[in-house]
């Protein structure tokens, strides 16, 4: 019987990996001539989701590998982001987050959406697949280039955002822009079941990062171009008063342009507010 088992193993092929188990990190392509697409990883999460700290750690490890190309946004939505009994009294849900969750189907947490790419109608990517999927997109050249210029007045909390960009090649279809305000370093309790991501079962002083607070121009953004020709420009301006609950020094403005026909994100930028 042992002979049969050993024989079948050889036949069926088994890859036994010897240490070291980690690959030598190959950072992103920071110094190439061609401008590369940046990637948006949306991490759908919630403060009572026990497996979410581990997923958030995967995302931040990935960002350390590809600091110039990966942008992370944590969307608190659904059942696991609801306020519950003490100490989970905070409510970080947003109307836009709930709408995106309903559309992309990320109710089961943790889950992510990478550049809103669809795989046969499925947008959801499990955290285990984030490294592989992000790496696969690293060499895509950018077709759109843009810049965000925020101006913030600390006294009256007035925020002016200017987004200015260019279509590097001619494209077909309609393109829309969504501008979001993200807040970093929000400290509040988080349920956790993975010891390598923090204490279990609750991390009382968990640092929530890249949290989506609101969008500036609606749930699905606004149209910036239809059938743009090469080198055509676009420009928009927004003015608002920053919500009193946000800590201005932790806020950043993140914007992305997407293809209105299939939701796929073409380019992302993030800039710190102050």
């Amino acid at each position, binding site marked *: 019987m042992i002979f049969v088992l050993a024989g*079948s193993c050889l036949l*069926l*092929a088994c890859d036994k*990996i010897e240490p070291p188990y980690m690959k030598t990190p190959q950072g992103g392509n920071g110094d190439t001539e061609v401008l590369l697409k940046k990637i948006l990883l949306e991490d759908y999460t919630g403060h009572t989701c026990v497996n979410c700290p581990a997923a958030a750690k995967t995302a931040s490890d990935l960002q350390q590998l590809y600091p110039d190309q990966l942008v992370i946004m944590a969307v608190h939505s659904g059942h696991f982001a609801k306020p519950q009994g003490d100490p989970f009294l905070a409510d970080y849900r947003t109307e836009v987050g709930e709408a995106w969750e309903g559309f992309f189907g990320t109710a089961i947490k943790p889950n992510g959406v990478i550049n809103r790419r669809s795989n*046969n109608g499925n947008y959801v990517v499990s955290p285990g*697949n984030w490294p592989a999927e992000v*790496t696969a997109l690293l060499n895509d050249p950018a077709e759109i280039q843009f810049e965000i210029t925020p101006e913030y007045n600390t006294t009256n909390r007035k925020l002016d955002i200017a987004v200015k960009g260019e279509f590097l090649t001619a494209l077909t279809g309609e393109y829309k822009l969504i501008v979001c305000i993200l807040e970093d370093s929000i400290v509040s309790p988080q349920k956790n*079941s993975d*010891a390598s991501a923090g204490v279990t079962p609750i991390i009382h002083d968990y640092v929530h990062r890249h949290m989506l607070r609101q969008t500036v121009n609606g749930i699905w953004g606004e149209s910036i171009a239809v059938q743009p020709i090469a080198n055509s420009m676009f420009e928009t301006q927004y003015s608002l008063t920053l919500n009193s609950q946000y800590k201005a020094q932790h806020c950043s403005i993140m914007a992305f342009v997407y293809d209105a026909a299939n939701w796929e994100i073409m380019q992302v930028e993030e800039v710190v507010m102050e």
Partner: protein
Amino acid sequence: MRMEKLCSSMNFYVLGLLYTTNEKIRQMKRPSLLLIALLIVLGGKAQDFLNQATVNGSFQIDAQLYRSDAAIGITDSSIAGRKIGINGYGNIIYSLGNFKAGMRYEAMLTPMLGFDPMQEGSGFPYLWASYSTDFIDVTVGSFYEQFGNGLIFRSYEEWTLGYDNSMNGMRVLLNPSKGVRLKAVYGSQRFYWQKYERNNRGLVRGVDAEFSFNEILGSLEDSPLRIIVGASAVSRYQRDADPIYKLPENVGSMAGRINIGLGNFTLMTEYAHKINDPSALNNFIYKEGHALLTSLSYAQSGFGVVLQLKRVDNMGFKSDRAYVGNALDINFIPPINRTHAYSLTGKYPYATQPNGEMGMQLQIHYKIPKGSLLGGKYGTGIALNFSQVNDIARNPIHDTILIGQPGTMGYTSDFFKMSGDIFFRDLNIEIDKRFNSKLKGIFQYMNLLYDIATIEGHAGDPVVNAHIGLVDLTYRLSSRKAVRVEAQGLFTREDKGDWAAMMVEYTIAPKWFVALSDQYNYGHPEKDQRNHYYTASAGFTRNATRLALTYGRQAEGVVCVGGVCRQVPASSGLTITLTTNF
């Protein structure tokens, strides 16, 4: 003649319908459409050809109409504005001599509450054809299969759970000689409605051999000693595209089993081993996995004893190493506790922990004979069951490495040691007694310890200790009419507190039933959450067709079938079930 004309026009209508079916059909390829068309046209037109062929099938529709119910906290937003959930399927099998083919149509539009939203869709996820003789059986397309106890390979479906990991590929079964049976499988597993595309999940291949020595060795043919030996090997191939970890592309696992019987004794044991399989389920550790399942039993008329032992260490094995949900499992680790059939005794079901668990179960059945003092006129059945499952003991491999740290060997664990953390403990006793020709009853007491934090994922919740009592009486009013009354009580200080449940069911054999039931959470720590979950149901059965309607509230719960569970949220409304076969 008219029937045939009607039949053929029906065929064309159905064909037309097939072509215009819902935009979510991804499984349909032109050749399979033609195959289906061919089958239906053949079925409708060639009458005498058909007298040698048979067509069988079945179908089932489960539908729920939801309504908001403020008293139990269901608002329109919590049912996501959805008013209807429909899960339905239709199955057809066509056989002609040694040739068989079949298909199953499924529609989950939208899936009922508690089912994974990824199940939404419709189409033909299950299409197959097979040719079988006594020597060989070849199946192409979709199939289900199990090697031994399923410790390294089990492909099955469970409609009530929304679980289906059917294989799509090819299977060969061989009977080269008497008592020897060989199996080989190759393919990809079903993942809801996502067709297999290059690298979106792994490929599975496996072989299994079973030798029944009593049939191979003539000398053993009539021996009271029965020996059956089996061995299997399964491997999964999945590409490594991860920038951080060095992942094995081929993960192999193997298992061996022996089944020995002597008179009334039976010993069954299976051992499985899996090489390194870093996955999202085990936090990307490189430890190998193993599982051992043993059972020793004795059975004679009126008395039976079973002792089962199990140890599982890092045996989660999925087609996609990144997936952690309730799908794509290549293997099946059976839980070894008793399944409970009543609403309150089954409120806290155990789910296997593939990352590590160690447990035992002892079950004793005895029937006190008729006419004895304790047994009474008809005899009394007693069933005693004790099961306990603990976590395994894990030791760190190095002072600086945490147990279960990703990218390392994870931990070491001694085969014979288990930790003090109890996941589940169940002691129950059931008495089955008939009092006279009209009245019989089932009485049960259960003592439960349930680690709800680990089993249901509610981190931080305290372990539930509960006492559960049950009385189920059936009174025969006449030769066809009967009344059944069920009363249950669950007493605990944790989770939602005490429950009381009562049900009255009136049946008219063989067709009708009407039932009223209520589950009352009178012990809930918060006064305004002490709800009644009442239902009224009725049903009609005629031969193989059954229609049942249930109206009322359903408490939040967990539905488990064989250690695989799904969480069902509380709901309110009407449930309709229709099933039939032909």
